[in-house]
C-alpha cells in the first residue's frame, strides 16, 4: 500500500533484504546469482503470455473451450507450463450477462504458471478489501463500465484452486490467427478487471 514514492531501493525493507541476503550467502544457503535466475524466469518464461495462448486457443477451438471450462487443469497440460501455484485450475467464462473477477482476500493467491507473478495492486489492501464488497464500483474506478444489468461473479481464491477468467473474444478480431489473437489478450482481462 506504499503510497510514498520513495525510491524502491531505499526502503527499510530493501535494507532488511540486503542484510538477510548477505547472511544467507555467508551461511551457504543462498548463491547470489540465484536472484538473477528468479528475475529471468518470471520476466521471460513465466508470465501472462502463457494465459494468453490458452485464451486464444479457446477462442478458435470450441472443443478446447468446452474442455477448458469443464476441466481447466487437464486442458492446460499440453501448454508445457512452469512456475507453480496451479495445482487445480478453474476457468470461468465471461458472457453478455456475466462478468467474472478474481481476487485473494487472505493473501495474494494467483495462477503463477498462467499469469506470472501478480501485479502490485492485486496484492494491495485496497483491491483485496473492496472487490468482494463493491466490485461494480471498484471496476468502474479501474475504468471498466459494466451494463447496469450485468451480473458480477467474484472468485475469492481461499484455497489451492486457482482461477482464470476467459474473456469474450473482441468483435473486431474475427478471422485473426491464434497467434494474433494471443497478442490481443491482456493480463487484466484474465483477472477480470478489464473486458
Amino acid at each position, binding site marked *: *500500500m*506504499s*503510497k510514498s514514492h520513495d525510491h*524502491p*531501493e531505499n*526502503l*527499510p*525493507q*530493501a*535494507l*532488511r*533484504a540486503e*542484510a*538477510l541476503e*548477505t*547472511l*544467507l550467502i555467508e*551461511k551457504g*544457503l543462498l*548463491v547470489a*546469482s*540465484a*536472484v*538473477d*535466475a*528468479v*528475475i*529471468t*524466469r*518470471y*520476466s521471460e518464461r513465466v508470465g*501472462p503470455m502463457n494465459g494468453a495462448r490458452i485464451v486464444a486457443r479457446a477462442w478458435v477451438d470450441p472443443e478446447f473451450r468446452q474442455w477448458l471450462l469443464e476441466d481447466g487443469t487437464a486442458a492446460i497440460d499440453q501448454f508445457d507450463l512452469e512456475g507453480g501455484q496451479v*495445482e*487445480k485450475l*478453474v476457468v470461468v467464462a465471461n458472457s453478455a450477462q456475466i462478468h467474472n473477477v478474481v481476487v485473494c*482476500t*487472505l*493473501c*495474494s493467491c494467483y495462477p503463477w504458471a498462467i499469469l506470472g507473478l501478480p501485479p502490485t*495492486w492485486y496484492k*494491495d*489492501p*485496497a483491491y*483485496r*478489501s*473492496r472487490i*468482494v*464488497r463493491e*466490485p*461494480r464500483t471498484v471496476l468502474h*474506478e*479501474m475504468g471498466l463500465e459494466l451494463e447496469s444489468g450485468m*451480473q*458480477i461473479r467474484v472468485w*475469492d481464491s*481461499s*484455497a*489451492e484452486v486457482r482461477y482464470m477468467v476467459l474473456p469474450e473474444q473482441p468483435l473486431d478480431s474475427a478471422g485473426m490467427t491464434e497467434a494474433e489473437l494471443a497478442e490481443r489478450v*491482456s*493480463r487484466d482481462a484474465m483477472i477480470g478487471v478489464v473486458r
Partner: protein
Amino acid sequence: MDGIHDLGGKHGHGEVDYEAPGTVFHARWEATVFAMVNAGARAGAWNNFDRFRHAVERIDPVAYLVHGYYGRWLGGLETLLVEAGLITTAEIEQRLARVSQPRPSGHNERVAARPKARPDPMGPPPQMAGSQRGMANPPKFKVGDRVATATEVLGGHTRLPAYARGKAGVIAAVHGGWVYPDDNAHGRGENPCYLYTVTFEGVELWPGGDPLMTVSLDLFEPYLNHVAWPANDAQDAQELK
C-alpha cells in the same frame, strides 16, 4: 486468526493504485526476497505453503500494510528462519545496522531488477508435494446443497475469512480431498478433508449488498454445516437440483 491479513470487506484502504502490465519486480531486493524464500525451503525452514502463509500473517501488522508483498514475505521468512534455528534475530539486527551505515558514493547505487539470462545455480526449489489427497469417506455435501459457515474460528491459521463467517451459501463444486491448512500450518498433520466452492449472494454477505453480485470461496468441510432453505426459496432450490 483475525489478523490484519484478513482484508475482505474492510473499509478505509482507498482506491486501487493500478499499474499497467510490464514490471515484474520493481527493485532488485524484491527478487532477492523471492530467491531467499526458495532458499529457505531448501534449507528446511518451511515445507508447505500453509506454514509460509501463516508466518506472513504473524508479521507486525503495520509492516503488513506498508511494506508491500515482498516486504511481507521477508518478514515471514525471517520468522521461519529464526524458528528453524538457521539464524538468530540478533544476527539479523546486527547485520541490518551494518548495511544501514552510510556508504561511499557509488557503493550502493543498486539498479532496478533487470533480467540476465542465467540458470538458477541452485536448481529449482524442492517440489512441494501438492495438496490434493485421496479420501476414504464420501463428501458430506453435494452441488446445490445449502450450507452455513462457521461463526467462529480458533486463533491459528484458517482459510475462512471473517466476512464469510456465519453466512449461508450454496455448494457450487466439490473438489475432492485437500490438505487442511488449519492443521497443516501448525504441524498438526495434513488431516485432508473435502474442499468445496461455495457461492454467496452479495445481499447475504453485505448490508445493502449488490443484488447482482455473488462471491464464491473455496471452503473446507469443517467450516460448513447443512442448513435448510428459507421457505420461499425452497421451491427455487428444488428447481436448481
